[in-house]
């Protein structure tokens, strides 16, 4: 039997940051999600025939368990190592929450497993940008312009601030990267992200 020549995309991120829902909006694969508890407790992968990526006939998506659920992620370590070592593209999913050290630590640890024979790409997806948890001094914050299905002006400011912060925090820790603001549930930024992933 002949192997499928797949482009491997690996998703990593803190628990609850919406890795699985983001994957679902990108490829509609129906991974289990739950707002309350972690669903992804194994390394889950799915292969989809997809001729959009030059040089590949399919895309293989890896969804990893969330960072932070256990004090030591040793149970999951092998999953991460495997996913990163086969990846053509690694996506870190994050939110406005600035608790970035767990992801920094994990990526620094995984850097050694990146396949240096390939030109592996790294992307940070800033998810949940419609979250209204961030409040301004008046305690009022409208994050979303429903009419345009886009972030409000104030939200856009928050995004820019967060992007700068991420650039500072992850600089030289793993690989060079772009930050793409997305909102999985509102289907915002999904195409932009896909374009970057596929490097079209």
């Amino acid at each position, binding site marked *: 039997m002949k192997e499928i020549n797949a482009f491997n995309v690996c998703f990593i991120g*803190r*628990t*609850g940051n919406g890795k699985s829902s983001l994957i679902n909006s990108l490829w509609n694969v129906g991974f289990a999600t739950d*707002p*309350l*508890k*972690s669903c992804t407790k194994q390394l889950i992968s799915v292969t989809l025939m997809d001729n959009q990526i030059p040089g590949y006939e399919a895309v293989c998506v890896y969804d990893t368990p*969330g*960072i*932070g*659920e*256990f*004090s*030591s*992620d040793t149970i999951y370590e092998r999953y991460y190592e495997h996913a990163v070592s086969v990846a053509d593209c690694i996506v870190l999913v994050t939110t406005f*929450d*600035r*608790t*970035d*050290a*767990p992801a*920094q*630590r994990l990526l*620094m640890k995984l850097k050694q497993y990146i396949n240096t024979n390939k030109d592996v790409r790294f992307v940070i997806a800033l998810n949940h940008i419609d979250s209204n*948890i961030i409040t301004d001094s008046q305690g009022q914050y409208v994050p979303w312009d429903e009419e345009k299905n886009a972030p409000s002006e104030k939200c856009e400011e928050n995004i820019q601030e967060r992007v700068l912060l991420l650039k500072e*925090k992850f600089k030289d820790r793993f690989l060079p990267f772009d930050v793409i603001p997305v909102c999985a549930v509102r289907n915002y930024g999904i195409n932009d992200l896909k374009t970057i992933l596929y490097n079209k």
Partner: protein
Amino acid sequence: MVEKKDARFLVNQILDKVLEKGKISDDDKKVVNQKIEEEIIERPFRVAVIGQSGVGKSTTLNSIFGLTNYTSNLAEGTSEIIEKVFPMRDGFNLSLYDMPGLNNDVDKDAKYEEMYKQILPGCDVVVYVVNSHSRDFGEDCRILKEVVLPICNKNEIKDNLILAFNKIDTIGENIDPNDPELKWNIVENIPTEKLKKAIKTKLDDITDKLLDEDLIGSDEGLKPHQVVFYSAVFNYNLKDFLLAITKAGKRGWIWPATVGFERIGKWSDAKIG
């Protein structure tokens, strides 16, 4: 009881009785009084509150430590921690160290850890606040085991530590935000029956995890009274918290006199079971 604006009234009467029994000279009496003054008046009750961001450190300070409208104005990247002293009743003082939370950035973490090492040993109570429904409680376990407990053990102040699970009122909202039965009963300030069950399940879950991580149930871990579950915004189950502070370390006993018992009436302590 007649209240005097002198903190020593609490101990003076007892002390007088004790001193009467022993044949103690007036000079020695003076020394004893001086020591007491030093211990309970001149040295404020020192508290450090730590925890990841968004767990409700400020609301905890407001409700448990009797401060009103305290909000943290800790700038990101703070490199110096200032002791803030709040005058409490009867001449007692509460001193507060508003500590930056860990886990924002690896470089900052290293810097903050050094701060923890300097400040925590001088505190009478160290409160580590956890969000009860946070999904990455594993990170809290890591911080406790790798950072906080080693500092406590090295300085023999493990008895000063309180592991405080805040926001038990919002456990229901996280299950189903549209279920009115899972909302807090604001009128009586108690959880509804359904919410009580949900809270119980969640607390059992947390307890199992604490056991798994050896944070309780072993010699290296904490004693049961050092782990408390509460809601700072609803003043719920603060009684356990108060008890934990009173039992904490060598100076916890000063705490009730510092903040007073007047507030207890406003607290809700319906039992989860």
